[in-house]
């Protein structure tokens, strides 16, 4: 083994011996968790965009069919959805270089975004309920249209209720994650003070 090789191995051995395995494994898990959440977040954004585009297209179709008032309500709902989506994602999540502290911080920010996402979904569910009720109770549009059918409106309300329950479950999960990462960050801060 030449001196350069020997030196390189020595440097790696020192690095290896100073490895805190628990910390390293935790870092890897956080990285994986963040990757999965990032993919999930993009997938959810894709669904939101698709839904909002669909509502917009339906609004345009209504306007083209001469139902300007109904079409406008569709467009308004889509705009409200765009606003809620922007509000959820208004802060960009910076990348972490790989240190455990940065990963914890990034996980915390993502968990907080999860809470904002839950609130945005509550808001959109409420907005959709109001929208359905406004369409149902007002005399606008075609009298034979689905939005004037009481049974369908009731079914829509049931779906909104189920969706809200789902959002509540996600909300509780996101809150738990925030508490967990806040505690983890506090533990690091306490250790730093001890040192």
């Amino acid at each position, binding site marked *: 083994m030449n001196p350069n090789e020997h030196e390189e191995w020595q440097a790696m051995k020192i690095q*290896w011996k100073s490895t805190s395995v628990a910390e390293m494994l935790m*870092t890897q898990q956080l990285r994986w968790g963040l990757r999965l959440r990032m993919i999930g977040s993009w997938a959810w954004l894709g669904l939101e965009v698709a839904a909002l585009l669909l509502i917009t297209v339906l609004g345009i179709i209504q306007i083209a069919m001469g139902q300007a008032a109904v079409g406008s309500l569709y467009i308004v709902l889509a705009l409200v959805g765009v606003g809620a989506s922007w509000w959820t994602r208004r802060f960009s999540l910076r990348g972490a270089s790989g240190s455990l502290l940065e990963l914890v911080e990034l996980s915390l920010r993502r968990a907080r975004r999860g809470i904002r996402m839950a609130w945005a979904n509550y808001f959109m569910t409420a907005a959709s309920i109001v929208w359905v009720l406004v369409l149902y109770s007002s005399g606008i549009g075609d009298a034979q249209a689905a939005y004037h059918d009481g049974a369908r409106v009731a079914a829509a309300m049931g779906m909104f209720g189920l969706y809200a329950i789902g959002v509540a479950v996600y909300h509780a999960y996101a809150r738990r994650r925030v508490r*967990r990462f806040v505690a983890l960050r506090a533990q690091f801060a306490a250790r730093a003070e001890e040192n």
Partner: protein
Amino acid sequence: MSQHARFEDLVSEYQVMVVRICASYERDRDLARDLAQEAWFAIWRALPAYRAEASLKTFVARIAQFRAISHVARRARQPQREALSTDLVDQEPPPESIAMASAERGSLLAAVQRLPLIYRQPVVLMLEDFSPSEIAALLGLNANVVGVRLNRARGLLRELMQREAS
């Protein structure tokens, strides 16, 4: 010295080494800990058969390696899964000073974990301060083969760590 006392000495002296060896073969924190526990159980069972033909460190490292390799082989037969962390708060984090440098250190372990098995085995032992001839004896390989593998592994490690850093 009773077997129990001897085992306790071994655990206190080589626990970190065993955990590091296991972590080189298993990325999941909980599974790596389980694997280390399995390795210690195997060491406990094998201890009465220890004949001092090799050092205790070699004896412990050999069993930990064998356990880790059979774990990798067993896992290769199972479908892949990645568990999400559910108990981060309960784990004891290391001092912040260590955490601040974790990116650099982490990249070495991460790079070792990515090495093909034939390179990972000698590298882990080399990093645990075994000499190339000891590694050859431990793995049942020719010393030249170990030298070649270590040389190639060093290049791969450098490459993997650079990729990790960029």
